[in-house]
């Protein structure tokens, strides 16, 4: 970390608790946001961050209150603009991790444009999408990730829209790190947060998050103990895609279409299963994964869909500045006033 005003900071590693701002947390009791907050605090401690290092930016929404509860620098922005604010901040603080806390309305409805541009440019933001498939803070209107047909305050006869598939959109915008996890699975959530932190480039994390008030149970299929193992495909790099309570189901491709095969019936198919490859450049494997969900009769993939290395936008900007400065010499006021077509009047 380079900082003009470096002051002595303790060298002790901080704990999760150190990352709490101490302000009362104002989410509803039982809200999935609590878990994301707790895991983030833990992961920041694990990563050895100092308090002043991570910079956290959000938009507006229940989830966007996140920065208030962290002890680091926080900026609670305006609705939809978190990624844009964070981009400016990251450009001037290239050595600091810049995290974005945002909701499905904030990021994918009003903020959709900033989102896809932050992905495209590989700005190097860590984007946590709290996807509860509803507008929480405004009390229960449908969001761009709400399912077709859902009854909400603004869709008394059911939603007519088709929802966005957040991971698919991120890939379409060429995001270099795309992952999915869930509020209820603390360990997995921590894992994803950590890997995102380590990724150099924009990291997009879809975090399925239960809104107990306006969309309770939206993720029961993938979070309830008794059913979740049959509905989740836990992605592991280099491993064949196997799932199920008894790890007896696998994923194969039929053309471009993933299908489920029963390994206890057909054990021989085991070595024809799809092998997960996070680093697959083209993003096609990741695209195939985005198509999968309970609704298509397939398990919902959790984990890292894609992670590829590509120079970041911030690196590019910094490099260009350095190169030009090297070539032309650092500008001074004297130089500035001497540039151009100048003549003298006596």
């Amino acid at each position, binding site marked *: 970390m380079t900082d003009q005003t470096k002051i002595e900071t303790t060298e002790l590693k901080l704990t999760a608790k150190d990352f709490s701002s101490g302000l009362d947390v104002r989410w509803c009791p039982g809200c999935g946001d609590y878990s994301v907050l707790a895991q983030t605090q833990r992961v920041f401690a694990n990563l050895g961050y100092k308090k002043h290092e991570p910079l956290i930016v959000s938009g507006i929404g229940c989830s966007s209150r996140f920065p208030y509860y962290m002890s680091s*620098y926080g900026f609670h922005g305006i609705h939809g*603009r978190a990624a844009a*604010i964070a981009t400016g901040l990251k*450009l001037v603080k290239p050595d600091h991790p810049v995290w974005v806390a945002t909701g499905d309305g904030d990021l994918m409805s009003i903020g959709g444009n900033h989102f896809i*541009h932050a992905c495209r440019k590989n700005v190097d933001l860590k984007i946590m999408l709290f996807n509860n498939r509803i507008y929480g803070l405004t009390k229960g209107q449908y969001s761009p990730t709400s399912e077709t047909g859902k009854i909400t305050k603004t869709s008394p006869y059911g939603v007519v829209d088709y929802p966005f598939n957040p991971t698919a959109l991120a890939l379409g915008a060429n995001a270099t790190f795309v992952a999915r996890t869930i509020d209820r699975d603390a360990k997995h959530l921590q894992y994803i947060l950590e890997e995102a932190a380590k990724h150099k480039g924009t990291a997009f994390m879809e975090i399925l998050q239960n809104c107990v008030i306006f969309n309770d149970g939206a993720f029961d299929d993938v979070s309830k103990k008794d059913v979740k193992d049959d509905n989740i495909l836990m992605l592991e790099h280099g491993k064949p895609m196997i799932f199920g309570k008894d790890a007896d189901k696998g994923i194969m491709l039929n053309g471009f279409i993933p299908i489920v095969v029963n390994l206890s019936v057909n054990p021989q198919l085991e070595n024809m299963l799809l092998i997960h490859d996070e680093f697959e450049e083209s993003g096609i494997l990741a695209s195939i994964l985005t198509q999968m969900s309970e609704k298509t009769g397939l398990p919902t993939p959790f984990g890292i869909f894609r992670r590829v290395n590509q120079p970041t936008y911030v690196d590019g900007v910094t490099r260009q500045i350095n190169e030009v400065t090297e070539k032309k010499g650092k500008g001074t006021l004297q130089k500035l006033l001497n540039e151009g*077509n*100048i003549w003298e009047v006596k």
Partner: protein
Amino acid sequence: MSEEIKQKKVENLTDVTVMFAGDSGDGMQLTGTQFSNTTALFGNDLNTLPDYPAEIRAPAGTIYGVSGFQLHFGSGNVNTPGDSPDVLVAMNPAALKKNLPNLKPNAMIIANSDAFDSKGLKLAKYESNPLKDGSLAGFKIFEVQITRLTQNALSDTGLSVKDIQRSKNFFALGLMYWLFDRPIEPTVEWVKTKFKKEPILIDANIKALKAGYYYGDTTEMFATKFKVESSKLTSGRYKNISGNEATAVGFVAASLLSDLPLFLGSYPITPASEILQYLSKYKNYGVITFQAEDEIAGIASAIGASFGGHLSITTTSGPGLALKTEAAGLAVMTELPLVIVNVQRGGPSTGLPTKTEQADLLQAMYGRNGEAPIPIVAASTPSDCFYMAIEASRIALKHMTPVILLTDGYIANGTEPWRIPEVSELKKIEVKYAENPETFQPYNRDENLVRPWAPAGTPGFEHRIGGLEKSNINGNVNYEPENHHEMIKIRAEKVNRIKNFIPDLEVLADEDADTIVIGWGGTYGAILDAVDRVREKGHKVAQAHFRFIYPFPKNTGEVLKKYKKVILPEINDGQLAKLLKAEFLIDIIQHNVIRGLPFRSSDLEKVIIENLGGNND
């Protein structure tokens, strides 16, 4: 070009207005700029008005495709681009038709007669050839076969006929250099650098330039050439500068003066894009330019950068400012330094994108939800943009507030010779940071009600801000009724106290004057000229010009109440007038002509004299 002036007659002039006009593809902006730069180097004061259509290259020969560049230069002070041209260079019939109504009586028209063929006349909707049908009686017409002469001169360059025709503006430029006795060398040098990678074009353009120059000298057509003595400018180093360039340089200077790196978040829009373009070159000054996906991301990124401790700005024009208003309110609430530059253009909506106007003042004042006061400053000339960029930055940093800097299409694109200040003439911008992490509270305030700045990432000052109402002092979210009332009053008073740090309104008054002419922004030159002429006619009048608009300078009320009549010309429907009337409850004589063009000082002169009870005949 040190040759002696030969047999031709030489006439001395104190000032001249020249209009170069042709198709959008004819290179008139380039020609005008070259003539300006050479004229500036030559030592004349000058002022320019580029005037081009919103389309890039409208179909050749049509009226709406005409691109013009007006230039006023003289041996005295020159404050406006000139009311009506003394000389028109018309590259085609459309250029003639469009500019004719505005020419001075007896003006000189240099027409490319080759372009006045039946096709050209038809495109310009001329029934008969105006050069021949006597309709131009009252003007001095010079028919020059610019097309053919350029062709002849360049026939051996190996260029195609089409490519050769692209050099005809250099022929016209050469001819004008001869006519006004300017050297061709600066343009020759420029051509050499500009076309470094295409030597064949260096050759062609210089040939065309010289051919034009010698044509003036050789032909019988021009019996007289003109001399405009250089101006007696204050001694110093000069540079011909446009408002947009001056704005860009001003912010780089502000960055150096405040010792803070500069961040610009912006989205291209006419006529503001150039500021982004200029600043994208200053990489060795540490300037970060972020071409955002839209105007909202432009300002949002700047707010983020300000939170991170940079001197942050965003630049735009009218419709872009409209998009930035929500985020501007966030900057008010978070009390972060930020300069929003708005280069005003013709509105409403997309309006007249390439024309000038002053109709965004009320938007700048009030275009935000809730009570969200933002200080406003406005530049009055191209070079004043340099100083106002610095002053806007100073206010933003000293008072922890967004500031809006208004310029307009006319001063943004127009140029004038600028006496470059010495480094020592520029006052440092002091930046105060939060100092003690133990006692730090983000919304604690100093005697000017300014909160402390603790850029994100500084160890020990971790804190959180945002757009919800804040508790006074500790800055936490607070919904309490009394706190809200208090914070609204504090934010207003904080801006109000900036009064104590800006200069008083300067009044240039004849003794006993009972009328004052006031103005703001880019109308400065036209008002100045008008007032001067009114004075020359023996009238008493006072003048004052607002560069600091909100808060008003401390002495504003006192000044205005001293005069029986207050005349306020604005290129809008009376926006500053509204603000002054509401604040001081005084009547104001408004003059509002909204034509997308700067005022003609002769029009203003008439208005002032009428109001003085004088006679305009």
